[in-house]
C-alpha cells in the first residue's frame, strides 16, 4: 500500500461522493420542504443517463446531450410531480413509499420499451478523455476530475441559492411553515413544483455524468438510490449541509472499503478468509455506518433546523 494508491482512492471516493451529493441534494430538499419520501428519485438519474446517451448519438454532440438530459429530467420531474406526487404531500410516508415504488416500476418499464433491456455504453467526450499528471507517478482520469469539479461547483451554487437569495429564503420558509408562507401571498404549489423539477434535474446531471463510467440500463437508479438514502439519513434529512457531509463520508467509506478492506483483513486473518469476507464487508460497510450513526444520533449528524 503506497501513498499514490491512497491519494488515487481518496480522489475516487470524492468523485463517488459528489455524485451521491448531486442525488442527495434533490432528495433531501424534497423531503425537507414537502415532507415527501421519493423512491423514484433514482429514476430521474436513469432518465438523465438515457437522454444524454440518446441525444449524443442523434446529434453527435456531447453538449446537446447535456442540454437535453438536463431539460428532459426537469420536464419529467415537473410532470411526475403534477400528475402523481402532488396529492401525496399530505399523506403518510407509507403511502409515499408505495406510490413512488410503483413509479420506479413504471419508469423502468418505459425505459425498457424505448431502449430495450440491454445495457448501453457511451464514450467519454473527446475533450475530457485521457489522463492528467497531478504529481509524479499519479495520472488521474480527466473525466473523473471534471465530475469532482462540477459537483463541488453545484454544491457552492446550492449553498448560495438557499442561503443568499430570495428564492432560497422562500424555500427555507416553506420548509418550516407552509401555511404561513402561502398566507403571505407566495404560490407555494408553484414553488414545490419548481423545487421538485430542480431536484430531478440535479439527479439527471448525476445520471448524465455517470453514463460513461457505469453501465446505462433499466434499474440503474435503484442501485444508487439506496446508497443516497444512506447518505441523507447519515447527514440528517432535510439539510443540504448534511447531504454534502454524508455524501463525502459515504463515498469515502465505500471506496476505501472496496480498495483496502481485503488486504487489511488479509493481515489480521488468513488471506483466503479475507478473500471472501473482504468484498462482502465492503458492501455492508455503509449500512453498518448508518446503523451506528442512527443508534447514536437518531436524527443524523446535521439535523435540519425547524423540525
Amino acid at each position, binding site marked *: 500500500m503506497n501513498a499514490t494508491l491512497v491519494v488515487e482512492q481518496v480522489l475516487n471516493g470524492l468523485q463517488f461522493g459528489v455524485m451521491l451529493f448531486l442525488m442527495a441534494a434533490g432528495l433531501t430538499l424534497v*423531503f425537507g420542504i414537502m415532507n415527501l*419520501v421519493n423512491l423514484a428519485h433514482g429514476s430521474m438519474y436513469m432518465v438523465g443517463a438515457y437522454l444524454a446517451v440518446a441525444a449524443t448519438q442523434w446529434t453527435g454532440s456531447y453538449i446537446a446531450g447535456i442540454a437535453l438530459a438536463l431539460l428532459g429530467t426537469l420536464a419529467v420531474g415537473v410532470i411526475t410531480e403534477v400528475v*402523481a406526487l402532488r*396529492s*401525496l404531500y399530505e*399523506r403518510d*410516508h*407509507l*403511502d409515499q*413509499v*408505495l*406510490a413512488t*415504488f*410503483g*413509479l*420506479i*416500476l*413504471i419508469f*423502468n*418499464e*418505459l425505459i*425498457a*420499451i424505448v431502449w430495450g433491456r440491454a445495457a448501453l455504453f457511451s464514450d467519454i467526450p473527446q475533450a475530457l478523455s485521457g489522463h492528467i499528471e497531478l504529481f509524479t507517478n499519479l495520472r488521474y482520469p480527466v473525466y473523473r476530475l471534471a465530475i469532482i469539479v462540477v459537483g463541488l461547483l453545484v454544491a457552492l451554487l446550492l449553498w448560495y441559492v438557499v442561503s443568499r437569495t430570495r428564492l432560497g429564503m422562500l424555500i427555507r420558509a416553506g420548509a418550516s411553515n407552509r401555511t404561513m408562507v402561502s398566507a403571505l401571498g407566495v404560490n407555494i404549489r408553484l414553488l414545490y413544483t419548481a423545487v421538485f423539477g430542480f431536484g430531478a434535474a440535479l439527479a439527471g446531471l448525476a445520471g448524465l455524468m455517470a453514463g460513461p463510467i457505469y453501465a446505462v440500463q433499466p434499474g440503474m437508479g*435503484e442501485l444508487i438510490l*439506496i446508497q443516497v*438514502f*444512506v447518505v441523507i*439519513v447519515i447527514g440528517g*434529512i432535510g439539510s443540504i449541509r448534511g447531504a454534502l457531509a454524508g455524501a463525502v463520508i459515504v463515498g469515502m467509506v465505500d471506496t476505501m472499503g472496496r480498495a483496502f478492506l481485503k488486504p487489511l483483513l488479509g493481515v489480521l486473518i488468513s488471506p483466503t478468509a479475507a478473500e*471472501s*469476507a473482504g*468484498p*462482502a*464487508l465492503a*458492501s*455492508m460497510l455503509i*449500512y*453498518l455506518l*448508518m*446503523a451506528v450513526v*442512527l*443508534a447514536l444520533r*437518531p*436524527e*443524523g449528524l446535521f439535523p435540519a433546523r425547524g423540525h
Partner: protein
Amino acid sequence: MVLLVVGLALLALVPAGAAYFDQPFYVDLLRRVMIFAIAALSLNLILGYGGMVSFGHAAYLGIGGYSVAILAYYGVHNGFLQLAVAIGASALVALLIGAISIRTSGIYFIMITLAFTQMLYFLGISLEEFGGDDGMALAARSDFAGLIDLGDSTAFYYVVFVVMVVFLYLIHRIVNSRFGMVIRASKSNEARTRAIGYSPYPYRLVAFVIAGAMCGVAGFLLVNHTAYLTPDFMHWTRSGEIMFMVILGGIGTAVGPVLGAFVLLLLEDIISGMAGFVGQHWQLFIGIFLVLVVLFAKRGLAGLLPGARRDG
C-alpha cells in the same frame, strides 16, 4: 366472518378441484400465494397494528430460507429441527434489528430497517460456500419423519393452508389481548400511552420479534416450495412487495394481508402470462395499479368488503 369462512372453505377445496380439472399448476400457484400471505400477515402485525413501517421484512424470508438450506447442505434434513432453527434465527435477528431500529421513528425507521436488510442481502451474496450471488438448490425438502411429505404437492398445500389459518387466528388473539391493546394504543397516541403508564419500547420490540419469527416460518415454507435459495429472497423490492400486499388488502385489518397477497400475486400471474406487449412489460401495469391503489383506494380492498370489521 361469513366471507372469511367461505373463502377459506374454497381454498381448502382447491387441490380437489385442481385434480378434478387436471390443473395441478394451480395448487402450486396458490401455495406460493399463501406463503406470501403468511409473510404479509406477519408484517401487518407490526405495520398495521403497531404503526412500525418496516421496509426490510424480506430479511426474515431470507433467514428462514437460509436456515433450512444451510442445514440441508450439511445433511440435516430433520424438518422439526429446521423449523425450530428458522424460527429461532429469525427471532434473534429481529431482536437485534428491532432493538436498534425501534429507537428511531418515521422515515428513519423505514430507512434503518431497509439498511439492515441490505446488509443481510450482501451477506447472502458473499456466502460463496452457499452459492453466493447465484444461490443454491435445496439439497432435500424438509423431512418430517414420515408424518408429512412436503414432496407431495397436495400435502404441502394443506400444510401451508393450516399455517396460514393458525397465524390468522394467532394474530387475531394477539391484537385483541392486553399486549395487543398496548401496541395499538402506542400507534394511535404514543404520549397518552406513556401517560397511562406503558413504555411502548418493550411492547414494540416483542411485537417486532414475533413478526420476524412468523415471517421466518414463511421463509421456511418458501424455500421448500421453490427448492432453490438465492439472496433475492431478501432483495429490497421483495420487502416492498410484501408491504404493498398489506396496504392493498387493507392496513390493520385481520384478513387484509391475505386478500392483498392473493390479488397482487394472481394479478401478476395473469398479466405476465399474457401474450405480446402486455405480458412482456407486465411490471408497467403492476406499477400503474400500485400508484392508482395508493392514490384512490386509501382503505385497501378489505374496506370494500361488505361487513368488514376494522381493527385498526
